[in-house]
């Protein structure tokens, strides 16, 4: 991979220059919460912000969009109305989340809707400082080596800029004079020092090793029922999780006609009707069954299939769940066979 160096003061100029490629989006603070917003310049962004409420999956896989327009004649694919976007300030955990989405949507039966948005969205990553909910150290997603177009590692005076794709390189070539290749001994030392320092910043204590066999062993544990007592089945965990990909498909019909749209919208396996088949049979009627599916899918089944958990340690479930059911509390409860307060 190509790695370049850039003075920090040159970042605003660079971001301004690349806006001709597409809309510039970045993390901003709104009413104390962090969210991605369309911006004009770096000054509108808040790079100190940690996680956004909703992960950047929403740009590649919107909460609701139209797949087909239909009438009596049949179904016509709706494509091509996707804007070109540059997302700046994406953290390593969220890039790992997108890599997982790539596996789900681009391999075997490639999803053309995801593929089109992925193609038209540039990911410009940015290094981050863990807060009291980050746990990417436990999921091995604290650094990232692929999946982005550019990645900016903040080393105080300058950025190390990792060029991850040909499109990323095209952006560099818009302002080549801002970058140089003079990387030396000090840069390597500074970077490894930064990694060491980042590793000391975590405040959460969690160990996810061994979850596949521990979950298997605890499959019938009453702990699931105890957790389910608290769970509200609100599905917020799915909305904010960077790797939750489940969706529902609904046909909307124009009143008084047979024309309409077939729409795809986010869904959650926490919802009661998620597994109901025609006739009313529900394979996961109990909340404990649905809760167990969510967590065993992330921390057990996914490891079996892809060799890593479908948790990127972003801490959004920790921040969002109103009753403190999250990766930390659930994995701990299963291991200790006790639900914490």
């Amino acid at each position, binding site marked *: 991979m190509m790695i370049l160096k850039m003075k920090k003061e040159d970042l605003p100029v660079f971001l301004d220059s690349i806006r001709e490629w597409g809309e510039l989006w970045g993390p901003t603070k709104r009413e104390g919460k962090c969210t991605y917003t369309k911006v004009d310049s770096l000054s509108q962004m808040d790079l100190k912000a940690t996680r956004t409420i909703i992960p950047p999956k929403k740009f590649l896989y919107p909460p609701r969009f139209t797949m087909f327009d239909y*009438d009596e004649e049949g*179904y016509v694919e709706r494509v091509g109305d996707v804007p070109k976007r540059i997302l700046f300030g994406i953290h390593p955990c969220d890039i790992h989340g997108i890599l997982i989405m790539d596996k*789900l949507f681009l391999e*075997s039966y490639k999803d053309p809707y995801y593929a089109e948005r992925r193609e038209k969205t540039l990911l410009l990553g940015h290094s981050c400082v863990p807060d009291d909910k980050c746990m990417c150290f436990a999921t091995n997603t604290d650094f990232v080596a692929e999946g982005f177009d550019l990645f900016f590692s903040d080393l105080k005076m300058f950025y190390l800029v990792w060029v991850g794709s040909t499109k990323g390189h095209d952006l560099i070539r818009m302002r080549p004079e801002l970058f140089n290749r003079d990387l030396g001994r000090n840069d390597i030392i500074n970077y490894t020092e930064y990694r060491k320092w980042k590793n000391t910043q975590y405040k959460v204590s969690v160990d996810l090793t061994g979850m596949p066999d521990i979950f298997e062993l605890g499959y019938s544990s009453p702990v699931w029922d105890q957790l389910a007592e608290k769970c509200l089945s609100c599905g917020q965990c799915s909305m904010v999780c960077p790797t939750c990909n489940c969706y529902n*498909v609904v046909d909307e019909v124009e009143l008084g006609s047979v024309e309409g749209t077939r729409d795809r919208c986010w869904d959650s396996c926490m919802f009661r009707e998620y*597994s109901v088949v025609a006739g009313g049979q529900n394979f996961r009627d109990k909340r404990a069954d649905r809760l167990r599916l969510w967590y065993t899918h992330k921390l057990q*089944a996914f490891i079996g*299939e892809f060799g890593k958990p479908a948790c990127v340690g972003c801490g959004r479930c920790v921040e969002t769940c109103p009753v403190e059911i999250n990766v930390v509390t659930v994995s701990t409860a299963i291991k200790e066979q006790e639900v914490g307060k």
Partner: protein
Amino acid sequence: MKKLCVVLEDREVQENPFQPDMWRIVRKYPLTSDVNFFQARPVDVDEALKFSYRPGQFVMLSIVGEGEAPFSISSSPSRPGLLEFCIRRVGTLTETLFTLKENETLGIRGPYGNGFPMEKMEEKDVMIVAGGLGVAPLRSILLYMLDNRDKFGNVTYLHGARTPGEMLFREEFMQLKEREDLKCLLTVDKDDTGKWKEKIGVVTTLFKDLGPVDAKNTYAVVCGPPVMYKFVMEHVVKLGIPKHQILMTLERRMKCGVGKCGHCAIEYLYTCIDGPVFSWWDVLHMKELIGRGASDKAIA
């Protein structure tokens, strides 16, 4: 090894896997008071012979303005050109489907799922156990084996229904009883007509009439309502048929058919791409298999 009469090729993957093609209903008639038989062919007739599939696969069927749901294919790929379905009116989508008439259109995409491992089953004895609407996917494999009869050993077909009137494809199976290359055993839970000449009792009562079974050389294929599995599996395992040679096909909610939407997950398996055909060994420990607790008591 010689090839099967019909080449079972995987279909070319479309650019947009969610795009339904339009098919025309060419025949439709009731099998029982709430189950209809549908026969359909592509609106573009040139496509008709290109649609290849395996017994046990399913399609996603769309009704304009109503939605989309998975349905088993009841016809056999050895009789190409038309797809047949055996569908119960049980929800809003099937309610609308039942109002469609011949020559009206619906959307179809697929086929999806693994289907039955026909190549592995060649030369083996095959025992099919169908309960109620479970006949929908099993009629496909039965017709397929009858059309390729030389490739298989003894074929036994066990079918249970609630009453003679509710036995799907009753006339068809009565005719199959005449065949000498097939053992076809039919039963009903109760006979309300007084004219039923076959067995009376649940489907497992037919096991008494099986005769000698070469268990290690036999595949069992089972599909029926959740309540049936527990009892049928007990009998099948007792016969000594290896658990990986006992196959079942499962029903789940599906919104995509291609492993994306998540709805059909059973623990680490997706029914749409890992199934819908599973071996008993694959799934016997799963609590969510056929409704909570149903498999708990089944023999381990």
